[in-house]
């Protein structure tokens, strides 16, 4: 049984400018114990998909299951198995950190959750803030409480919706250490993020969404192998000649050019010298997920998962339905 499975999920919203198709038939599965990344530019439908999984939004058609429980028909079982860290930094201003966590446990009918709450507070670096009111906490601390709230009921499936957006390095490391530990202990993690190096470091498998469709679904290592081997990186303040500017990826004064062979490296450096540019901090390195990401986003005319991807979900539906009735309380 998969930890999470999306079957042909469609979602459209009525907007003043007409119907908006946020999701156009998304299907994929996250297996138990995986650390799975869901990537895509803003507006690709990541949060909509997570909201449907969490029961905050309903799919226009299609279905979603958490460990075999349908998120609509069998919502209570599905939500017990799911811990969601919302993207927005929200909090209840009336309570202290410990009260917040005790109340959240109570919603799931869990009594005497003190030991686990202590472990959460400890693991997320909140122990000395347990008695503080939510209003007094900094943004980073509030974010930690959000994570703790999502985990009070020890869900086997953890969903993190851009948990590190605008978060400092220390928190990021605390968070990843803690979540990785849970993942090693058997929890499934589904992560959406904008930080591609994060996805590269943590996720075993990745799905990329673009305009509501899955445009890549592969092991992270396979995705990286697909990238144009090596790149030449350097810094400069000068303007690149047009032929190089066309193929370059520039971020501020960082420039990156595809350089698959040594000959190409030589040619590029010669071209720079001709143009009167003196590059600083030159290095030749492997392409990263960001390159793959940009490549996939630019070239995805046909939004089909690549052949290495796991089989399509269609033929397993019958099996899933059987499983869900078994798990229902």
């Amino acid at each position, binding site marked *: 049984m998969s930890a999470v499975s999306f079957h042909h999920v469609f979602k459209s*919203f009525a907007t003043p400018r007409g119907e908006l198709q946020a999701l156009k038939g998304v299907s994929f599965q996250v297996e138990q114990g995986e650390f799975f990344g869901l990537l895509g530019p803003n507006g690709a439908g990541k949060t909509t998909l997570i909201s449907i999984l*969490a*029961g*905050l*939004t*309903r799919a226009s058609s299609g279905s979603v299951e958490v460990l075999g429980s349908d998120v609509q028909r069998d*919502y*209570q*079982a599905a*939500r*017990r198995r*799911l811990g*969601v860290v*919302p993207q*927005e930094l*929200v*909090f*209840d*201003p*009336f*309570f202290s950190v410990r*009260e917040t966590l005790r*109340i*959240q446990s*109570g*919603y*799931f*009918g869990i*009594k005497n959750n003190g030991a686990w709450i202590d472990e959460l507070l400890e693991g997320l670096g909140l122990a000395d803030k347990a008695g503080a009111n939510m209003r007094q906490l900094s943004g980073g601390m509030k974010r930690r409480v959000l994570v703790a*709230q*999502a985990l009070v009921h020890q869900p086997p499936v953890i969903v993190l919706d851009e948990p590190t957006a605008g978060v400092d390095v220390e928190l990021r490391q605390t968070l990843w250490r803690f979540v990785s530990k849970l993942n090693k202990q058997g929890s499934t993690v589904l992560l959406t993020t904008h930080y591609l190096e994060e996805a590269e470091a943590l996720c075993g498998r990745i799905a990329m969404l673009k305009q509501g469709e899955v445009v890549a679904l592969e092991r992270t290592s396979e995705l990286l192998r697909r990238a144009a081997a090596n790149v030449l990186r350097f810094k400069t303040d000068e303007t690149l000649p047009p032929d190089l500017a066309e193929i370059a990826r520039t971020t501020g004064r960082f420039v990156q050019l595809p350089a698959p062979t040594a000959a190409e490296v030589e040619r590029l450096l010669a071209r720079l010298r001709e143009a009167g540019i003196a590059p600083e901090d030159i290095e030749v390195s492997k392409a990263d997920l960001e390159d793959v990401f940009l490549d996939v986003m630019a070239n995805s005319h046909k939004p089909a998962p690549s052949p290495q991807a796991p089989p399509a979900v269609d033929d397993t539906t019958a099996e899933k339905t059987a499983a869900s009735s078994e798990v229902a309380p």
Partner: protein
Amino acid sequence: MTGWQTLLYKEVLRFWKVGFQTVAAPVITSILYLLVFGHVLEERVQVYEGVSYTAFLLPGLIMMAVLQNAFANSSSSLIQSKIMGSLVFVLLTPLSYKAWFAAYVGSSVVRGLAVGLGVLLVTGWFTSLSVVAPLWIIVFALLGAGLMGALGVVAGLWAEKFDQMAAFQNFIIMPLTFLSGVFYSIHSLPDFWQQVSHLNPFFYMIDGFRYGFFGVSDVSPWVSLAVVGLAFAAVAALTLQLLRTGYKIRH
């Protein structure tokens, strides 16, 4: 505690933590009404034989406070947590729509009764209030608070801005409670306005509640009970339906 009990507890804790604003303030307001209107009208108005105006006024003020605060509790809790985004913590749980109903309406009843009791206790030492039929008092207080708590859920789900909530409160709830016979017997009104008052469900809540204190009322308490009971059933059914479909909270 089970899930719905936790949500009820949390909702009670929410208003209790700001008790000055949610309990003490409305108690003070009611006492000011009592002092001012009582002082001005004590010698001039007698509604029921042998009942002083201040004594007549008090049950009406108590019930008005119960109703307004029951409404304010669920409506402000929902609109605040919707706008702050913290409603998501409840939306992510396995709590059923019935659990939501029990918790939001239940906590509203608790707040309404807390304020009502507060007014009663504070005014107890300077007015002598008789109690003829305590059961009627309890029944109308509970039904009225429940109805307003449920109506507060409806308003809280419907409103998207504080502005809309203020409109609901000031253009619907306030006039209906004020014009329900709190300060006067509707028999003192011209015929036309008496008829209009009979269409106001709040009138029956106040009138039935007052019957418990004096044993006299404008209409029979059984009629009031039927009207208030039906109104509660209708509003509760609507509330349950909106919660079940996730009206404006699950898109």
